[in-house]
């Protein structure tokens, strides 16, 4: 008599999506190849350049970079971290992960910042983009892997596409927020002295939004870091693969080595980009929640960036 929940299980949602994605994969293949192409080129370029740099030179470069962008302390930490990674024997994989992240930063900046600016200037665009970002940031990251595999295939390059997609939302949000947060009176002053839209953006809004945008960049880097590990599941190389292989073979030692290297790399990138944002009075990033998320296996209910952005918006 009683209806069981399973009796209702007749909605063919799974089939619909399966067929839909299949159809898209078959018929829109050229389009996805077109998307994949620049990602592949830049990733290969970055990867080969970073791998071509000799180990001592790489140490020196990272040291100088951390010193210039952050502080001497951070630079010393980066130096020690890199040496430890090398001692763990996962240097090559770490460099691959680094090139994944570097590539993601470029794409996120080139696509994300202009979208953020567009959102800040048009309430209508923001009304469309905002729910999309909400969905993107609440979706567990590995859910992206399924459509990515179907549309782009498996391997490092499709993985990079997933990294770019996952890491983009914080930068869009922070760019939008940074421009919206610019003191209303200063914007009025720009208008009162006869700035046109372009001048207002370049002379007033963007320079004052930079600290916030850099805060977003920090979030993007950390999200990219997390995702670059998760995409090992679809065959991407890098530190994630070390962990995944360790788990597959029940080799706890190897998995731990991968984990330690990931934490070190993440802390380095966080400190460097965080100082970058802070030095101009930007927002503080949150490394701990990202790491906690990472330990839980990338399964997160909601991204830290989204939280931070919401908090900042509330503060307005």
């Amino acid at each position, binding site marked *: 008599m009683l209806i069981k929940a399973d009796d209702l299980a007749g909605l063919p949602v799974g089939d619909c999506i399966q067929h839909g994605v299949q159809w898209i994969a078959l018929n829109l293949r050229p389009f996805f190849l077109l998307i994949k192409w620049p990602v592949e080129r830049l990733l290969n370029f970055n990867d080969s350049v970073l791998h071509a740099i000799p180990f001592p030179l790489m140490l020196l470069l990272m040291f100088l970079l951390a010193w210039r962008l952050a502080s001497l302390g951070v630079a010393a930490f980066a130096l020690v971290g890199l040496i430890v990674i090398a001692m763990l024997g996962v240097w090559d994989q770490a460099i691959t992960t680094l090139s994944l992240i570097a590539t993601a930063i470029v794409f996120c900046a080139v696509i994300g910042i202009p979208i953020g600016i567009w959102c800040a200037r048009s309430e209508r665009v923001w009304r469309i983009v905002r729910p999309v970002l909400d969905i993107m940031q609440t979706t567990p990251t590995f859910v992206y892997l399924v459509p990515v595999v179907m549309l782009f295939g498996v391997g490092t390059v499709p993985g990079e596409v997933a990294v770019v997609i996952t890491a983009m939302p914080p930068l869009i949000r922070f760019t939008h927020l940074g421009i919206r947060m610019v003191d209303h*009176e*200063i914007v009025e*002053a720009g208008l*009162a*002295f*006869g700035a046109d839209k372009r001048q207002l953006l370049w002379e007033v809004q963007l*320079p004052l939004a930079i600290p916030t945008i850099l805060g977003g960049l920090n979030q993007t880097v950390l999200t990219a870091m997390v995702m670059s590990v998760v995409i090992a599941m679809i065959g991407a190389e890098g530190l994630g693969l070390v962990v995944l292989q360790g788990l597959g073979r029940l080799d706890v030692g190897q998995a731990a080595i991968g984990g330690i290297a990931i934490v070190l790399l993440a802390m380095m990138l966080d400190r460097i980009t965080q100082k970058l944002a802070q030095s101009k009075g930007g927002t503080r990033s949150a490394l701990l929640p990202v790491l906690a998320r990472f330990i839980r296996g990338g399964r997160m209910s909601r991204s830290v960036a989204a939280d931070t952005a919401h908090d900042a918006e509330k503060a307005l």
Partner: protein
Amino acid sequence: MTERLKIEHLYKVFTDKPERALAMLNAGKNKSEVQETLGQVVGLDDVSLSVPSGSMYMIMGLSGSGKSTLARCINRLNEPSAGKILLDDEDICTLDEAGLRDVRRNRISMVFQHFALLPNRRVIENVEFGLKLRGMSAGERRKRAEEVLGVVGLARWAYNLPHELSGGMRQRVGLARALATDADILIMDEAFSALDPLIRTEMQDELLRLQRTLSKTILFITHDFQEALKLGSRIAIMSEGRLVREGTPQSIVLEPGSDYVAAFTREVDRGRLFDAGSVMTSLVTILRSPNGIVLGDASGEPGPGFMLDADERILGTVTASEIELARGGAMPRPDTRFTCVPAHTKLVDVASRYRAGGTIGVTDDTGRLIGRLEAGQILAGIGAPGAAGAHHVN
């Protein structure tokens, strides 16, 4: 004086579709009635005024009275809903985007309450801001900015960042930025309201000093009636989006015209607003004799007067009866207990010169005696009419 800026029947309703609100306002409804019926906020309700060239025109009102809305309508930071704003007979409201930009770059500049300086730019770059937007070359605008910084006394601070300056200095930068564009109309929106009282007074004096040489047409928004009196050559008082009183500071204090305005004028320090010339009894020559010249009330009333010698040197005061005797040819004996003050002396300063039983003579700029003041006149001039009990005394 010519009119620089003329505002005719200006309305502002904060909505995209102001037609119904405008119809209600035209039908005589007020701001709160419109808000109640339509839920739309009325900023300006039929404001007309004209600003003479070179004047310091004060727009005064409490918060929500529409004074800032009015100022922002003039350079269209707020888009007026209806009406005309004529700048040298050209209607600003009908300008297209490029025309409006041109007006903002060259004709009207603005000083903001919280300075609105770019925190990431140096002082001199902030001053250059308007010139840069206009497309002036780097060298040229740097030269101009240095010049203007000198005028406001900040040449030494040109390469500092705004946050390294005090509030008063920051507002000098704001003022320099507005002056740099050479716009002849300056909108100052509560420009000194965010400053400490002492700094505010200093900036007011500075503005008065600058205005003497610059002769800009300044629209100064303020909620402070004292400030309006001190700076203004004319004052427009706003309430509920309407213009309730307009005139010179002294005329407004003398005839507030409504309880709302009277509430402000009651607090006014009249001793500092009115001068000896405005309350004195005028004197004219009523007798010339070989003994000297006698000056008496211009109205012809009998009363005390002054006695001068043949060279118009003041000898002293004479009573009404002595004047009568003098008419008969007698030699009056002038009382030498008197003081003289120039006509532009403020009443507070006159009061401090007064000595019991004496009369005060008022002279014009050349030192010629033109009037006299009694203690009662000084007190009446300083006291506020309508203040507690004053009606019942006479």
